[in-house]
């Protein structure tokens, strides 16, 4: 947590001197938890930052999501080229409390082992997004959205990192959390298509952003629980959406959803993710977003919802 705060204050101080591009403030969205610009849980067709066709900008972000016995911390950096291409690198770390891992062992051993160490699942995501056509902000005389396509290569770093007990022993060698829950692969690539449109002056003078994203993926819980399952290794089409209302030149409120396919089943049943957020854009270099996120079921935690905070810098 201290690390997070330090990094955030660094970001804030950097961005005070930044020149992040000339596009309208807030039109780059925020950096989502997978590194793509848009909402918190879904990419938009808009290119991150504020670059015009003649500009390049860089971004950095740090994000924290607290879900009771799970905590997700993610951080990353990216760059945007000429309002056309966005490239990002994101590291995610899911911390799982020892209470939960202990319960896993208790279940597996019918109570013989009831105490385990906390565990961590890390994932790296390399993302790229390309604007295909449209201008979701300035083509206000047309209903056509801006369209972008993107890909996210995800590599789970703890697919086979064994869970350990307090005495240092490893009852299940080379079996990480994803593998234990039945995932098949440690990496996968999501591909997505996003359609995004900002409706200036609508409703009643405010600006409304609408986004719909279709994602083709094998990921279980975004890849944190691996990719595919022994019984179901096919990629599926998932739907994601965002609605955001700019209630002032610097503040947006909104809500999002993201469907997931329930491949692993059992403990790792997946639900549709929803969130409600407020994002603050004091200037083009900085944004701070707070959200309430509900992931539904996570292994051994049927109701997983909590607070999300992210700080983005553009320079």
């Amino acid at each position, binding site marked *: 947590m201290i690390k997070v705060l330090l990094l955030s204050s660094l970001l804030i101080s950097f961005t005070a001197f930044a020149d992040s591009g*000339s596009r309208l403030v807030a039109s780059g969205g925020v950096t989502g938890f997978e590194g793509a610009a848009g909402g918190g849980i879904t990419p938009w067709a808009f290119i991150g930052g504020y670059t*015009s066709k*003649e500009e390049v900008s860089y971004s950095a972000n740090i994000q924290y999501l607290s879900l009771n016995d799970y905590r997700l911390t993610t951080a990353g950096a990216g760059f945007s080229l000429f309002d056309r291409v966005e490239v990002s690198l994101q590291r995610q770390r899911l911390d799982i409390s020892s209470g939960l891992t202990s319960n896993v062992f208790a279940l597996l051993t019918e109570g013989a082992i009831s105490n385990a160490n906390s565990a961590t699942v890390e994932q790296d995501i390399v993302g790229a997004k390309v604007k295909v056509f449209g201008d979701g*902000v*300035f*083509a206000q*005389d047309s209903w056509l959205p801006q369209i972008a396509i993107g890909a996210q290569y995800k590599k789970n770093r703890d697919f086979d990192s064994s869970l350990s007990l307090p005495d240092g022993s490893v009852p299940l060698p080379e079996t990480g959390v994803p593998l234990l829950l039945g995932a098949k692969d440690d990496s996968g690539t999501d591909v997505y298509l996003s359609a995004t449109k900002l409706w*200036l002056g609508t409703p009643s*003078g405010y600006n409304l952003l609408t986004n719909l994203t279709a994602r083709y993926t094998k990921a279980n819980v975004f890849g944190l629980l691996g990719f595919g399952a022994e019984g179901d290794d096919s990629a599926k089409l998932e739907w994601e959406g965002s609605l955001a209302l700019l209630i*002032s030149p610097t503040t947006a409120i909104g809500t999002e959803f993201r469907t997931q396919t329930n491949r692993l089943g059992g403990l790792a049943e997946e639900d549709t993710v929803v969130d409600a957020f407020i994002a603050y854009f004091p200037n083009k270099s900085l944004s701070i977003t707070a959200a309430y996120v509900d992931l539904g079921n996570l292994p051994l935690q049927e109701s997983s919802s909590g607070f999300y905070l992210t700080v983005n810098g553009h320079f």
Partner: protein
Amino acid sequence: MIKTARVRALITIFLACVLSGCTSIPKQSLYEEIGGHKTLNTIYGVAITRIYTDPVIGHYFKGVPKKHLRDQLVLQTCELIGGPCEYDGKTMLESHTGLNIKEREFYILVEYVQGAMRDVGLTYQQENRILKKLAPIKYQTVNL
């Protein structure tokens, strides 16, 4: 019989109301709402002063009389936001062709106009509604 006619009339009124967005009947235009010519003239007066001294885009306006540009912009915006004006000057396309204006430069200008609207006291909602009408001008000015 009378009853049916009355119900029918009510339904017609209701439908008309829904279809027209249920706004009060003599609808005030955005132009009138913000204070007409006087307000637009002030907005562009403020914006143009800043635009002419901008280090990046100021040079495009060398030799263009401020008053002429101001009148043209007021007239054009008036027409776009429902005022009783008819713009008869050169089209945006004509006056910007060959200048090779960069997207970045257009965005800088937009921010000056936005800033002027704010400084003159327009509400955020009025600003957005005007911006919606002005936004497509991007395609008659940039990269030509």
